[in-house]
């Protein structure tokens, strides 16, 4: 467990009850946030386009999620006669459940002291937490791929295939970015990774490039713009959920938002110190109190909600990638970049540890290295050759052709 304290950890029957309470609390928080964020999404979209956004249902449109939910419950559930019935019904659940499950291993605040002992704020504080996250988050694509296949509709199938192709490509970049975190954290338990960040600095500094790649991959994994190719409405109608209606469609929608929330919480846990309050050391040490739990919970959720907001912000700023551009970015940019980055980081960490530099000074040294690497990545490697796809590959050919023609026409300039 996180720190050795005089307060004993909860055990026995009380542990089971505590886990049940935690499940209810976390489920409620996640569902309420998901519901509110469907409204926030539309509100922020409105403001960014100099509109008001939904403002009819309740004060400032606050009851809009309730109205949407009611509407979806009362709408007709269509079951296409040509669909593979069993999987068609199963697919929304398959995408909804993993979206919620990932949340169970993330600690959301300092441990809560109770009469029966300390209670960890992660539902399941399992030692292999990070592997669990990687495993479960990849399961979500089964729901999407099966929805696309079971619909027996060409657009839905294309959407499902795109989702699986995209997820595989970006899982690698994401996994390698996580490897960098594990190198520095030295552990795969989320609570330990947070404790390491509390002792040193947040990993966003020492692992800035990994953070950026992780963020980009998280956008791709949650199928959000600019990577929402699986549902690309301009090409695929609605992609994998073309044939879905009413609550089944709504489940996909909830799953998407729950996935975004999970990815935000994950970014915060891995790179922004989890529930750590910056520049304060007292919040991460015993004795634990309810006030500390409340303060750290505020810290965790405000950080998480910022990234949750970032999803919306990016969505209403950037246009969608073309599919070949998406694959180019995943395989030709992020994968080699992260392979090189992990090697550089590993060498740097090993060298620093051999030199006896650990803890905060190690983090500072790595931050310096990452600033240098960041400059190289964003100001040198990013130039010109970015995500051009087929057009960029073809450009030298057309340029050669144009030059040859100009030469044949006697070099006449226009």
């Amino acid at each position, binding site marked *: 467990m996180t720190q050795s304290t005089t307060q004993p950890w909860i055990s026995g029957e009380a542990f089971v009850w505590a886990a049940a309470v935690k499940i209810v609390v976390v489920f409620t928080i996640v569902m309420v946030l998901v519901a509110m964020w469907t409204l926030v999404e539309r509100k922020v979209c*409105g403001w*960014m386009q100099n509109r008001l956004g939904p403002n009819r249902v309740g004060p400032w449109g606050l009851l809009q999620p309730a109205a949407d939910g009611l509407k979806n419950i009362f709408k007709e559930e269509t079951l296409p006669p040509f669909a593979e019935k069993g999987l068609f019904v199963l697919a929304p659940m398959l995408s909804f459940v993993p979206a919620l499950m990932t949340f169970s291993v993330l600690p959301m605040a300092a441990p809560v002291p109770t009469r029966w002992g300390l209670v960890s704020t992660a539902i399941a504080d399992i030692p292999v937490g990070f592997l669990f996250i990687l495993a479960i988050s990849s399961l979500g694509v089964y729901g999407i791929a099966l929805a696309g296949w079971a619909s027996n509709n060409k657009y839905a199938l294309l959407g499902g295939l795109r989702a699986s192709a995209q997820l595989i490509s970006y899982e690698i970049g994401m996994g390698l970015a996580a490897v960098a975190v594990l190198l520095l954290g030295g552990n795969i338990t989320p609570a330990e990774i947070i404790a390491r960040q509390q002792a040193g600095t947040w990993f966003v500094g020492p692992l800035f490039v990994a953070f950026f790649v992780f963020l980009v991959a998280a956008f791709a994994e949650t199928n959000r713009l600019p990577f929402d190719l699986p549902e690309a409405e301009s090409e695929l109608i609605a992609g994998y959920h073309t044939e879905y209606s009413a609550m089944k469609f709504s489940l996909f929608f909830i799953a998407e938002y729950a996935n975004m929330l999970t990815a935000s919480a994950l970014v915060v846990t891995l790179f922004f110190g989890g529930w750590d309050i910056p520049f304060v050391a007292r919040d991460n040490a015993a004795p634990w109190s309810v006030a500390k739990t409340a303060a750290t919970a505020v810290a965790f959720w405000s950080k998480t909600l910022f990234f949750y907001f970032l999803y919306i912000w*990016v969505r209403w700023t950037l246009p969608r990638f073309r599919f070949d551009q998406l694959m180019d970015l995943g395989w030709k940019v992020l994968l080699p970049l992260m392979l090189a980055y992990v090697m550089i980081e590993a060498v740097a960490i090993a060298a620093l540890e051999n030199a006896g530099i650990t803890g905060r000074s190690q983090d500072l040294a790595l931050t310096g290295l990452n600033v240098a690497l960041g400059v190289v990545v964003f100001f040198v490697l990013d130039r010109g050759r970015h995500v051009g796809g087929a057009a960029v590959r073809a450009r030298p050919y*057309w340029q050669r052709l144009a030059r040859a023609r100009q030469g044949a026409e006697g070099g006449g300039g226009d």
Partner: protein
Amino acid sequence: MAITVKVMKRPERESSYVRAALRGMSLTFKHLFQKPWTMQYPEERSSAEWSISGRWRGTHRMAVDENGKAKCVACGLCPQVCPANCIKLIPGEDEQGNRYPLVYEIDEFRCVFCGYCQEVCPEEAIHVGVHFENSEYSREGFVYDLERLMKQTHPVSSLWDPSDPKGE
């Protein structure tokens, strides 16, 4: 001749996806705090910046004379000129030999709101109006009879005047 491809000269050294994306995000963030440009329609129907044009051609209106009767003399010009064939007119004649419409119906659903009926009318009886809120629950509801056309109160369209093309 072979297909020619114009190769654009783009400053490749200066282009960068990440920095361009960040610039775009700062722009959208600024828009978050700007005032909305929209008009809140059902509550607010016109403002200093925008009001409906006097030349708007909308829901029809039949002009009424001092005796409360329709000005229409059932000459038959409007059904003749109507490109959408949406005006139904059955003329009648009274004891003095004055023609009047026995049946005068306009199907607002078929109408293309060209305003020819108003232009062609010798008695200035039928008009298109400065009005657009005509929703109905059934298609039949869009067939306006003479009585309903006479009851309309919205201002009539001034139409386009060739001598004053910009409406000044």
